[in-house]
């Protein structure tokens, strides 16, 4: 068994599209089930690493430890859910060709421990995202895709500059050798590398000074695809960024800077959401806010906080899938995602789904978001950082304001359209809601795994 199957098989399925043109949706489901099987196979063999092509540390290395297993299984789960959810869409082969490659790009980002290989997967994931943004083929979609490509090109240029500087000064590309040699480099080069990595990954992880474009892109993207961006893409970049940072063992001031940026990002995003009048943009801003919290928590280098952050990543992915997929149903009926359109639909089922998603994101018991936020706050309290605890709680109030405003707008206003949710969609969305409830009531098993994962993440890549 090879770890490369995680990447090779989805790509193979996309390459062979001409042989099963109209049945690619079924093939995609099969591929994702197969990948889930691989993940289950590797679970009992953690942690492991694999050299590709040449059995020596000189070749590319893939690592599957606790934290990368967490992300791999999360992404496979999300993609399996996506492909099952859209299995009835007959004329949508293009989406599946791209989402398969998108899957392998995201998985490659997680698994690879070679900095240039990470760049390749970075590009694969980004390019599939550009194409998915332009899928609607109208001028809104193209204008979004063009904006995305400009910022994306800037990100990849700076990432490439960082990688080139590291190779020029250290001569090796694996994360472990870069981590070992990073502090022997010239101080100026160290800062330059960190700055290029911050610009490169900061744009992609949608963090404050570099996230001016995000709401526009989410608005241009088809709603279901926006769910994938929120649940998979930004999380993959986030993981890689912190994986590299912890491996490089950066100084405490740099981490403190990231903490401040995360907090600021959280505040600004939630305030922007407050004055937005488009539900899709509100969800985009909410994603930005949650990514700010994750940035803040992941840069703390504290096991409890980081394990809470990992739990939050899972909960946020599930909640955003629910919210965006339900919004897709609303959009199909109302032909708009504006707040007025959102207020006008009538469906008890969708209303419940939206309410569960909002409450979970806010961190209200008994939903899973509560456990995640509680763990993060407990960790910060044990570090003595009460200021951060207070700030997170205060900003969450802003979040609560616009969520409850949306729900009450729907409750109060006159209903214009009744939405009938198809059976398949009903079952899938209920499954997500049940998962959130279950994780909120019985979080212990997952929390233990998250603690192991957090330890591996903070340790960085050291073996070989």
């Amino acid at each position, binding site marked *: 068994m090879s770890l490369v199957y995680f990447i090779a098989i989805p790509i193979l399925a996309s390459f062979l599209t001409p042989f099963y043109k109209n049945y690619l949706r079924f093939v995609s489901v099969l591929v994702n089930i197969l990948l889930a099987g691989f993940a289950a196979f590797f679970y009992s063999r953690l942690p492991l690493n694999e050299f590709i092509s040449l059995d020596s540390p000189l070749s590319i290395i893939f690592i599957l430890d606790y934290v990368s297993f967490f992300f791999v299984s999360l992404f496979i789960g999300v993609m399996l859910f996506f492909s099952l959810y859209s299995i009835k869409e007959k004329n949508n082969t293009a989406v599946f060709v791209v989402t398969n490659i998108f899957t392998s790009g995201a998985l490659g980002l997680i698994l690879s421990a070679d900095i*240039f290989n990470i760049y390749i997967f970075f590009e694969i994931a980004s390019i599939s995202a550009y*194409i998915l943004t*332009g899928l609607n083929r109208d001028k809104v979609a*193209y*204008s979004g*895709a*063009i904006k995305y490509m400009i910022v994306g*090109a800037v990100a990849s240029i700076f990432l490439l500059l960082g990688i080139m500087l590291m190779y*020029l000064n250290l001569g090796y590309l694996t994360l472990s050798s870069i981590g070992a040699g990073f502090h022997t480099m010239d101080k100026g080069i160290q800062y330059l590398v960190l700055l290029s990595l911050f610009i490169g990954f900061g744009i992609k992880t949608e963090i404050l000074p570099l996230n001016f474009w995000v709401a526009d892109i989410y608005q241009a993207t088809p709603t279901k695809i926006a769910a994938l961006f929120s649940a998979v893409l930004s999380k993959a970049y986030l993981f890689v960024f912190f994986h590299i940072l912890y491996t490089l063992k950066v100084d405490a001031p740099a981490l403190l800077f990231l903490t401040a940026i995360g907090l600021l990002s959280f505040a600004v995003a939630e305030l922007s959401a407050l004055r937005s009048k488009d539900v899709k943009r509100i969800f985009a801003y909410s994603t930005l806010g949650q990514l700010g919290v994750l940035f803040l928590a992941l840069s703390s280098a504290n096991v409890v906080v980081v394990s809470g952050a990992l739990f939050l990543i899972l909960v946020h992915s599930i909640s955003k899938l629910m919210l965006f997929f339900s919004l897709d149903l609303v959009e199909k009926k109302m032909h708009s995602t*504006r707040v007025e359109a959102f207020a006008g639909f009538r469906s008890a089922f969708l209303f419940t789904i939206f309410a569960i998603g909002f409450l979970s994101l806010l961190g209200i018991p008994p939903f899973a978001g509560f456990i995640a936020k509680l763990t993060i706050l407990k960790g910060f309290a044990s570090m003595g950082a009460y200021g951060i605890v207070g700030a997170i709680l205060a900003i969450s109030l802003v979040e609560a304001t616009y969520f409850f405003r949306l729900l009450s707008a729907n409750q109060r206003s006159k209903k214009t359209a009744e939405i009938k949710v198809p059976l398949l969609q009903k079952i899938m969305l209920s499954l997500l809601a049940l998962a959130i409830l279950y994780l909120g009531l019985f979080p212990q098993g997952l929390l233990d795994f998250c603690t192991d994962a957090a330890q591996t993440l903070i340790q960085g890549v050291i073996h070989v």
Partner: protein
Amino acid sequence: MLETLNQTTFLHTVVAIGSFTIFTIGLVGVLSKKNLFKIFLSLSIVESSLFLFFIGSHFEVGKAAPIVADGIKLFDGHMVDPVPQAMILTTIVIGVAVLALSLTFVVNYYRLSGNIDIDKMDELGEVQ
């Protein structure tokens, strides 16, 4: 005089200064041009400057290409590092692919909206 010109450190300096001049030209183009085509071409120029810098920095006086031919019988320290060349080969292909895709988006956008000015792209944003 010619001896100093033919030294590795001197040539590296020339390459670094030259490629970062191109880097500057490209970035200025990205920030000051309004035409979408020109923006993407400027981004491509920035990328090429990085390729030039990386390849040029691995040039060393007196070393051959890493290919056994024409009297060179052995792979050893008298050859230049092959990894940067392979890396740049990879990135050039990626750059071409991304450039083709982005220009197609620009063409399609122009066809639908009749606009190629980045300041006039107002399809997205907060609804009033």
